[in-house]
């Protein structure tokens, strides 16, 4: 898959250097990476959830629309979360279970955007013998505009 080129798909690799729940400090920024979002990456993501809207695929349609060009669907942050973080980021830890998400959308991401992420754990707690981390994330485009912001909870592997 083109998108995965240069991306380490074996999440066991570097697993031993990733922070475990005990080491995650709420408030400390996570290391992040700028990411060039391509049309191909957007369209592969779209196909994986059955998105077929012409705003994502048809340049002429998108140009004539109020968006004045191709855009990515709002949920593109699902891809951006992994493309904007390095292999030693704890979101990749095998067995990380997503326990819920909330996202707010400002402007769409577009093909050709260079996306940056500001992210941190905001809180951590133990509930019914499970180890939770609350994270907050904000994605920006190359102009410094907020694309979307979100909060998620994961259950950390024991």
């Amino acid at each position, binding site marked *: 898959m083109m998108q995965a080129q240069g991306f380490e798909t074996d999440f066991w690799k570097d697993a031993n250097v990733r922070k475990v729940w005990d080491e995650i400090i709420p408030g400390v920024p996570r290391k992040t990476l700028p990411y060039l979002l391509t049309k191909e990456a957007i369209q592969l993501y779209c196909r994986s959830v059955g998105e077929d809207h012409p705003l994502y695929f048809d340049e002429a349609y998108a140009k004539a629309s109020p968006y004045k060009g191709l855009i990515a669907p709002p949920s593109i942050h699902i891809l951006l979360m*992994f493309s904007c973080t390095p292999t030693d980021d704890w979101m990749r830890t095998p067995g990380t279970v997503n326990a819920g998400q909330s996202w707010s959308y400002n402007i769409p991401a577009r093909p050709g955007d260079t996306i940056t992420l500001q992210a941190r754990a905001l809180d951590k707690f133990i509930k019914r013998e499970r180890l939770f981390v609350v994270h907050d994330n904000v994605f920006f485009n190359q102009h410094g505009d907020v694309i979307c912001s979100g909060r998620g909870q994961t259950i950390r592997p*024991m």
Partner: protein
Amino acid sequence: MTTNFETLNAGDTIDGPDFAVSRESIRLFCDGSLDYNPLHLDDDYMKNSFGKTNFGGIIMHGMNNFGLITRMLTDWAYPAGAIHRRLETRWVKPVKPGDTIRPVGIIKAKQVTQKSRWVLIDVLVKNQNDEKVATGEAMVEFPIAA
């Protein structure tokens, strides 16, 4: 019929698309999202228990539900000139290869603010046995025409 803020009522529904979940669809979501967590790939790993939970095999990404709900909301909002502004979700039940899931939205309320108009929507995703697999709330903005 195009959706219109004035004529929307609490209780109106938004029908989402059926989505057939298979090992291939889960693998494609790995490639599309770059989320290669072994929860979604590795049957041997999934023989383990996670705390008190044993899934008994690979499971679909929770965020695949999120992407499917988003697809339903934007397909509904775009023709009306409306903008999908917020989605909050919780996962209720794991989804496995062989399941068919379908999101639905139910209009909960309308709110006019100083500068815009908003529709609040309860969302849920059900599987082929009519079991809830995900629930949440969404907010769609219907801007006042300039």
